């Protein structure tokens, strides 16, 4: 998740590049690659210089330990799936693919992935929630190195000046946001954009309220959407919210146009570039005091595609095991501000990064988007995007979500939970 969201500021460029690459690549991928026995390739979305470097360093360490060379091939996040599919049809799949966890079920369902347990990977130190996160229909296909979720970021100075406490319930959040809205500054910023970003941000409100993606027109989901509408009506949210990606939200927060925001840890690196900004992080407020704050689990998983070459698959499994080992996870998590998937690594991480403690708590209770729907998630996601955008721009939440539910379950792209 992090990686794809990081990049959403260039969201337009990515799909376009995807299309042109698809067209251009169609002719080229026909000629299968000649594999070098000791060179293993990883397809990932680490196109940012920093991520690419961190990955390259980790791969060099693991390569040395296993006596192989590991090369990484990075494409924009939105292209990983189409690229991998194309490679599958030309029988030139890489040895390891790093998918966004919400995309993994689609590839797994097509029969493209190998069960990591048969390759000898252990899940002993991985919390059940994160094992599920990397599993599809009970089979463990994807090893997460780190996970992330959403939290409430707030501007400490602004809250202090106003003498306000960090909100913990919906009512408090609404009131605080209203009081912090002044001049060109909004009380809260969140993304309700028409892409996965917006859906990712809606889920903590939907889930903490007891709503569920299998029943979009349920009263809990309607209530959650009504809550978003009330924030907009108060003027605490900008009307541009429906056009913002999570990266846009971060820009607004950094520019002082928002006193609080819903966002994820992948923004921390950017946030820290502005020294004068003193931010804090808290759990996303819940409907009632004492309720459980359930956020969406995000992050990428390392998978081994089904290439038919068992020898190579076994080695690929060892590489995945090494890259997701406790030590590598900790290094990666400390670099990227995300939470290690491994329990032991996460415990160390908490001590090293105490300021993100709230995030670790939120991750522990977080839920995977595809746990219930698997490959059917993308239909629900599209229907939901359209629904909250309609509702935030005038329609009633009830009507919008009812239509979304119908759309999500109709046609051959519908979901059958």
């Amino acid at each position, binding site marked *: 998740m992090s990686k794809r969201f990081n990049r959403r500021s260039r969201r337009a460029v990515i799909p376009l590049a995807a299309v042109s690459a698809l067209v251009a690549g169609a002719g080229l991928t026909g000629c299968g690659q000649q594999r070098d026995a000791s060179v293993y390739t990883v397809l990932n979305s680490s196109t940012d210089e920093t991520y690419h470097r961190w990955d390259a360093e980790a791969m060099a360490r693991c390569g040395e330990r296993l006596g192989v060379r590991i090369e990484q091939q990075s494409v924009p996040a939105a292209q990983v799936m189409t690229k991998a599919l*194309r490679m599958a049809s030309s029988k030139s799949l890489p040895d390891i693919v790093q998918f966004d966890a919400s995309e993994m079920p689609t590839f797994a369902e097509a*029969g493209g992935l190998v069960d990591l347990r048969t390759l000898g990977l252990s899940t002993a130190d991985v919390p059940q929630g994160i094992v599920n996160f990397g599993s599809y229909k009970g089979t463990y296909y994807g090893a997460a190195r780190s996970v992330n979720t959403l939290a409430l970021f707030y501007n400490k100075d602004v809250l202090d000046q106003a003498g306000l406490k960090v909100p913990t319930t919906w009512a408090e959040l609404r009131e605080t946001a209203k009081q912090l809205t002044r001049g060109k500054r909004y009380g809260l910023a969140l993304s309700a954009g028409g892409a996965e970003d917006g859906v990712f941000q809606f889920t903590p409100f939907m889930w903490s309220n007891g709503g569920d993606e299998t029943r979009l027109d349920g009263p809990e989901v309607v209530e959650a959407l009504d809550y978003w509408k009330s924030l907009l009506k108060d003027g605490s949210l900008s*009307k541009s919210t429906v056009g913002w990606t999570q990266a846009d939200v971060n820009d607004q927060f950094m520019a002082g*146009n928002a006193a609080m925001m819903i966002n994820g840890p992948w923004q921390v690196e950017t946030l820290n570039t502005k020294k004068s900004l003193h931010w804090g992080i808290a759990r996303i407020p819940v409907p009632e005091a004492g309720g459980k704050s359930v956020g969406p689990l995000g992050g990428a998983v390392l998978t081994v595609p089904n290439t038919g070459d068992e020898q190579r698959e076994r080695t690929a499994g060892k590489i995945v095991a090494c890259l997701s080992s406790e030590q590598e996870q900790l290094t990666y998590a400390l670099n990227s501000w995300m939470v290690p998937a491994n329990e032991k690594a996460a415990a160390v991480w908490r001590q090293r990064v105490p300021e993100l403690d709230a995030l670790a708590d939120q991750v522990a209770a977080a839920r995977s988007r595809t746990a219930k729907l698997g490959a059917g998630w*993308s239909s629900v996601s599209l229907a939901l995007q359209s629904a909250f955008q309609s509702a935030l721009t005038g329609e009633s939440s009830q009507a919008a979500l009812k239509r979304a539910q119908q759309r999500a379950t109709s*046609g*051959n*792209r519908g979901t059958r939970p």
Partner: protein
Amino acid sequence: MTTSTVTAPATVAQAPAPGPARLRGRRRLAQWGFVAPAVVFMLLFFGYPLVRNVVMSFQHYTPKTFFTGEAPFNGSDNWSNVFRDALFGKALWHTLVFTAGSLLGQFCAGLALAVFFSRRFPLNGVLRSLILLPWLVPMVVSGIVWRRILDQDTGVLNSFLGTLGLDGSTPWLTDPHMALLSVILVNIWIGIPFNMVILYGGLQEIPRELYEAASLDGASAWRTFRSVTLPMLRPVITVVLVLGFMSTVKILDLILALTDGGPADATQTLGTLTYQNSFVQLDFGAGAVVGNVLILISAVFAVFYLRANRTEGK
């Protein structure tokens, strides 16, 4: 399409009396040899994808297909699913409004500017080349820049309107009722240079004497424009509109950059719907259906164009 205007008939006509059959056969072979590259090119790069796309629209083509190579035929399932989807009707309507609106705006503004620049005045050349700028900027870049300009809170346009004492909080891209109009306006801005350049070229071709004659006859400026400029410009106008139509009806990049089809699907067009079906939902069969509809629309238009050309030729 114009590749078949080979000079072959001329050669045949110039040739002396028909020789022995063997020679004639060889000449025929040579003629085919000249045509062959064009035919092969067309079949490979136009024929094959077209047929493939039509076939795909009748198949259950999913991610699994990439592994097994199997895409079972499912009759008209894809078609009925797409047509039943309320979004399709919406997207079709948006595409028509977008295309008509863009063409009208681009053409009128382009024509006005072309007429304006066909007079002589200082800095004419400089200004004319400056107006070309939108054409030179990549579509995605224009889209991203305009997205910032049109931002409701921080956009330059609203700040400007605000300083003029007008409504400085117009929700250009965030209100479903405004978004399509805003997208059309941006596309008009992009399309003006193209229209202007071609129409300007056309205007230069009109003989000066006609205008002299018109003014001697005492025709007003408007009358001259209607009775001399427009009729003389007709072939050029057809070309401009047809090319404009082709590039507008399949719009994708601009909309993805500006609104991503939103808010609330207010700017979904057939182009974005194809993209969404094929590359977000990975339902390639459904994507192919929408693509075929786009092709069909273009084909119908192309027929009209060819007919218009034929009558013109006569």
